[in-house]
C-alpha cells in the first residue's frame, strides 16, 4: 500500500505537470489540476493510516530509481548552470560547476554499493508535511485557476503562459512530496535542487526585469545552500559510509558529524530564508500571488525547516543546537520588527513568514521533544493560515489594485466577504484558542531554559501581535454602513479560502487530538492546552463570540453617529470644515517608524547580526 501511495504522491504530479504543459486547453487543464489536487489529498489522507512506514522501490516504470535520480541530478545542475550563464551570473555558474564536479567525484569515486536500506521512509513529521503539501498546496493551485486568468487579463499577454505556470506549480508539489518522504541523502539532494529550480522559474514567471533579478537572487542563494548541502552529504558519507538518513539520525549526536550537520543546517537556513537570506523570499513577492502562497506556506521554505527538524536529533544537546535556536529566535524577533515598519501587505506576510519560520527553527534548536512537537504544530497551522492570507491579499489586490495595507482601510465596505475572512485569518495567527498561538505557547514553554532565546521570543511575540492587530483593525475601519454591495467571486476563488479558514479553525478546536497525534506516545509530555482547558476556553470564548455577534446585530439598528472630529462640522463625509472653511479630508495612516529607522538600515544591522549568529552556529560545531 505505501508503495502505491508513494508512487501516486511523487510521480503523479510529474505526470500532471507534463499534462498541463502538453494539453493547452483551459478546461482540460483546470480538470487536471483539480483532479490532481483531489488525488493528492486523498493519498495523503490514506497515508495517515499506514505511517510509519518504509519502502525501497527499486524501479519506476521499469527504470532504476537511483539511476534516474543520478541522471536527473546532473541534469538539474546543468539547468542551473544554464540559467547562470543566461543571466550572466558568475556566482551561479561557479556554484553549478562546483556542485557538478563534486557530485561527479562523489558518484564515481566515493559511493560504494553498501548494504540495502529503505530509500523512502515516513513518520509523523513526513506525514504532516505531506498532508500540508497536498492539501494546502492543492487548494492554492485551485485558487490559482481563476486568479491566473485574471492575472493574464490584467497583463494583457498575447500568448498564455499558464500551461508552464501550472506545470511548475504541480511539479513543485511532487518535488516536495519526494523531499519529505525520502530517506536517502542523495535523493534528498535531488529533490532539494528541484525545488530550487521550480521556485526560480515561478519567481521569474512574469519575465519583467525585476522578476528576473529577484529570481536570479533566489537562485544563487539557494544554490549556495545546495552546495553546502552537497558538501555536508559528502562529508557525512565519508564519516558514516551510509546515505541512510534514519541510520544517521538514530545514531545520535556525534562530535565528528557536527560540522557537516552545521552545513546541512546552513542549507536549511538558506532555503527557509532565514536572516540574512531573507531577501530572496522578499524578492519572490514579484511573482503572481499563488506562487508566493505556495512558497510561503506549504513548499520551499518548509523544506528548509523540514531539513533542520529532520536532523535535529542528530545534534541534540550540542552547541550547534543552541546556535540554531539562537539564530532562529533572532530571525523571529528581527523579522517581526521589520514587519512592523511595513505597509506593503505582501511584505508584511513575507516578513511574518520568515519570522515564524525563525520560531520553528528556534524550536528545532531547543530540540526537546516538546519543542519538536511545537515546531511540527507550527508548521501545520502556519501553512494553513499563511496560505489563506496570501490568497486573500491576492484576491484583494486584483480587486482594489493595491497590496498596501493603507489602501485596505475600510475594506469591509468594498469586499465584505473577503475582508471578514482576512480578519479571521489574521486572528487565527495571533489569538488563542487558535493553533498558531497554541503552538507558540508550547514553543515558549519549552524554551524556558534558554535565556536569550526566551527573551527574543518574548519580544518578538509582542511585536508580532502588534503588526497583525494593526492590519486587522484597519480593514474593519469604516465610518458608515453605506450600501454594501454583495461581493461576487467565482467558486474556485472562494472555496479554497473558506476551506483554509475552516481547516485552521477546525484543527484548532481539535487541538488536544492533533497534539497527541503529533507528539506521539511518550513520557513527560504534558499538553499544556489539555482538553479541559480547551473546553473552558471554547465554551467561554465561544459563547462570548455568540454574544458579540448578537451585540453587533443590535448595534446595526442603533443611531449612527459620525466620528469625533473635535466638533468640527462635517459637510461631506470623510472631511471636516477646517481653515478658511474648506472641507479638509480626514486622512488616516499608521506609524511605520520610518523616522526612527528605515528598512534598509535595519536590514543591514539585522543581516550583520544574523551573519554573526550563523558564524556562531557553524563555529559552535567545531
Amino acid at each position: 500500500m505505501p508503495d502505491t501511495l508513494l508512487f501516486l504522491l511523487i510521480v503523479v504530479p510529474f505526470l500532471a505537470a507534463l499534462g498541463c504543459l502538453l494539453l493547452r486547453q483551459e478546461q482540460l487543464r483546470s480538470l487536471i489540476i483539480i483532479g490532481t489536487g483531489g488525488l493528492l489529498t486523498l493519498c495523503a489522507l490514506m497515508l495517515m493510516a499506514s505511517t510509519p512506514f518504509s519502502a525501497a522501490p527499486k524501479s519506476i516504470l521499469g527504470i532504476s530509481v537511483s539511476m534516474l535520480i543520478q541522471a536527473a541530478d546532473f541534469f538539474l545542475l546543468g539547468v542551473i548552470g544554464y540559467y547562470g550563464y543566461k543571466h550572466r551570473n558568475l556566482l551561479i555558474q561557479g556554484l553549478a560547476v562546483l556542485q557538478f564536479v563534486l557530485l561527479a567525484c562523489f558518484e564515481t569515486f566515493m559511493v560504494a554499493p553498501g548494504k540495502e536500506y529503505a530509500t523512502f521512509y515516513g513518520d509523523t513529521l513526513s506525514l504532516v508535511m505531506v498532508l500540508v503539501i497536498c492539501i494546502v498546496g492543492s487548494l492554492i493551485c485551485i485558487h490559482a485557476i481563476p486568479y491566473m486568468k485574471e492575472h493574464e487579463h490584467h497583463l494583457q499577454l498575447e500568448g498564455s503562459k499558464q500551461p508552464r505556470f501550472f506545470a511548475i506549480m504541480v511539479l513543485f508539489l511532487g518535488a516536495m512530496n519526494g523531499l519529505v518522504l525520502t530517506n536517502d541523502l542523495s535523493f534528498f539532494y535531488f529533490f532539494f535542487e528541484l525545488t530550487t529550480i521550480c521556485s526560480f522559474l515561478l519567481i521569474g514567471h512574469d519575465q519583467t526585469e525585476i522578476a528576473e533579478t529577484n529570481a536570479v537572487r533566489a537562485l544563487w542563494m539557494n544554490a549556495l545552500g545546495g552546495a553546502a548541502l552537497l558538501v555536508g552529504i559528502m562529508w557525512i558519507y565519508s564519516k558514516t559510509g551510509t546515505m541512510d538518513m534514519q541510520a544517521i539520525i538514530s545514531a545520535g549526536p556525534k562530535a565528528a558529524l557536527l560540522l557537516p550537520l552545521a552545513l546541512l543546517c546552513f542549507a536549511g537556513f538558506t532555503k527557509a530564508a532565514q536572516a540574512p537570506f531573507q531577501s530572496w523570499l522578499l524578492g519572490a513577492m514579484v511573482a503572481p500571488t499563488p506562487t508566493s502562497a505556495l512558497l510561503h506556506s506549504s513548499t520551499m521554505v518548509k523544506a528548509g525547516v523540514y531539513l533542520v527538524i529532520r536532523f535535529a536529533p542528530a545534534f541534540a544537546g550540542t552547541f550547534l543546537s543552541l546556535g540554531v535556536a539562537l539564530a532562529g529566535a533572532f530571525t523571529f524577533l528581527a523579522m517581526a520588527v521589520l514587519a512592523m515598519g511595513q505597509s506593503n501587505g505582501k511584505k508584511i506576510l513575507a516578513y511574518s513568514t520568515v519570522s515564524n519560520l525563525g520560531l520553528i527553527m528556534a524550536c528545532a534548536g531547543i530540540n526537546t521533544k516538546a519543542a519538536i512537537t511545537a515546531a511540527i504544530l507550527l508548521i501545520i497551522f502556519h501553512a494553513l493560515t499563511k496560505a489563506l492570507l496570501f490568497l486573500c491579499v491576492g484576491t484583494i489586490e486584483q480587486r482594489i489594485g493595491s497590496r498596501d495595507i493603507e489602501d485596505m482601510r475600510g475594506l469591509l465596505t468594498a469586499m465584505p466577504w473577503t475582508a471578514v475572512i482576512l480578519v479571521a485569518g489574521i486572528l487565527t495567527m495571533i489569538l488563542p484558542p487558535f493553533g498558531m498561538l497554541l503552538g507558540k505557547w508550547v514553543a515558549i514553554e519549552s524554551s524556558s531554559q534558554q535565556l536569550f532565546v526566551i527573551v527574543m521570543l518574548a519580544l518578538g511575540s509582542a511585536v508580532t501581535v502588534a503588526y497583525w492587530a494593526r492590519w486587522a483593525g484597519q480593514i474593519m475601519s469604516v465610518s458608515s454602513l453605506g450600501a454594501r454591495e454583495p461581493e461576487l467571486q467565482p467558486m474556485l476563488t472562494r472555496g479554497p479560502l473558506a476551506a483554509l479558514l475552516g481547516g485552521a479553525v477546525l484543527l484548532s478546536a481539535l487541538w488536544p487530538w492533533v497534539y497527541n497525534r503529533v507528539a506521539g506516545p511518550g513520557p513527560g509530555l504534558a499538553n499544556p492546552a489539555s482538553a479541559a482547558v480547551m473546553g473552558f476556553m471554547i465554551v467561554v470564548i465561544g459563547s462570548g463570540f455568540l454574544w458579540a455577534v448578537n451585540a453587533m446585530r443590535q448595534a446595526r439598528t442603533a443611531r449612527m453617529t459620525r466620528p469625533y472630529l473635535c466638533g468640527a462640522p462635517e459637510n461631506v463625509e470623510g472631511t471636516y470644515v477646517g481653515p478658511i472653511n474648506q472641507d479638509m479630508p480626514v486622512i488616516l495612516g499608521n506609524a511605520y517608524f520610518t523616522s526612527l529607522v528605515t528598512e534598509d538600515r535595519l536590514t543591514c544591522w539585522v543581516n550583520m547580526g544574523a551573519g554573526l549568529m550563523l558564524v556562531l552556529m557553524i563555529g559552535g560545531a567545531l
Partner: protein
Amino acid sequence: MKSLFLALIGMAVAPVVGGLVSGLDRILTARCQSRKGPPLIQPFYDAAKLWGKEVTATNPWQAFCAVMYLVAAAASVGLLCAGSDLLLIFFVQAVGAVFLVMGAYAVPSPYSQIGAQRELLQMVAYEPLIILTIVGIRLMTGSFRVDAVFALDQPLLFKLPLLFLVLGYALTIKLRKSPFDISACHHAHQEIVRGVYTEFSGPYLALIEIAHWYEVILVLGLVSLFWATSIAGMILLVAATYAAEILVDNVSSRMTWRWMLGSVWLSGLVLSGINLVWLYAR
C-alpha cells in the same frame, strides 16, 4: 471540577472587587490632591449610567469588539482563579487587548486610531515584560501553572525582586496610569482626547469599564502571586503595590511613546535579565 467552580466564582466576584478597587483608587488619588473625591461605589454608578445610555455607534463592529474584550478579560480572570497556566492566562488577556485595539481602529477617527496605534506600542512594551516575569516564576516553581506557586514555601518576591519591579512597569501600563497613560486616559486631558476609548460610547463603554475592572483584578492577582505563602502577605503586597502605583501616577508626567518604548525595553530587559541570569546561575 473544583477549578471550574473556582473559575466561575472568580469571574463573578472580580468585577465587584475591581470596581471597588477603582473607586478606592479615585478616592485616594483625590486625597493626594487634597480633594475629597467621589463615593466608593462611583465606578458602579458610572458603569450603570453608561449602560443606560442611548446606544449610538459609528460602526457595529465596535460592539463586537467591546463584548470580546470583556469576555476575554473575564476568561483570563477565570483561568487565574482556576490556577491554570500563566502563559495561557496572559495570552487570553491579550485577546481582549487585541479586540480593544480593533474596536478603536474600527472608526475612522484620527483620535481613536492614534490611540489604537499607541495601545499597540504599549502592548509591545509590556507583553515581553510579563512573559519574562512568568518565565521567572517558572524557573522558581518548575511549572507554568499558578497552583505551583502556592506549593512554594517561600515568597517569590525574595527570589524575583527585580522581576517584581519589572512587573510593576507592565502593571502601570496596563492600568493606564501616569507616566504610561499614553494611549488612553480616564479623563480626557490628553492630546488624543480619550484615545482608544474615544469612539466607544454608552453601553459599549460600560462593557469596557467592566473589562477594565477584570484587568485590574488580573494584574493584582499576578502581583499577589509574589507572596503566595500567606493570605495576609498577599493582601499586604497587593495593597502596597497599588499604593505605589497611585503615588507614581501622581508624581510623574506622561511619557511619549518613544520615551516609553526605549525606557521600558531597556530598563525592563536589563532588570529582568539580571534577575533571570541570577536564577539560571544558581
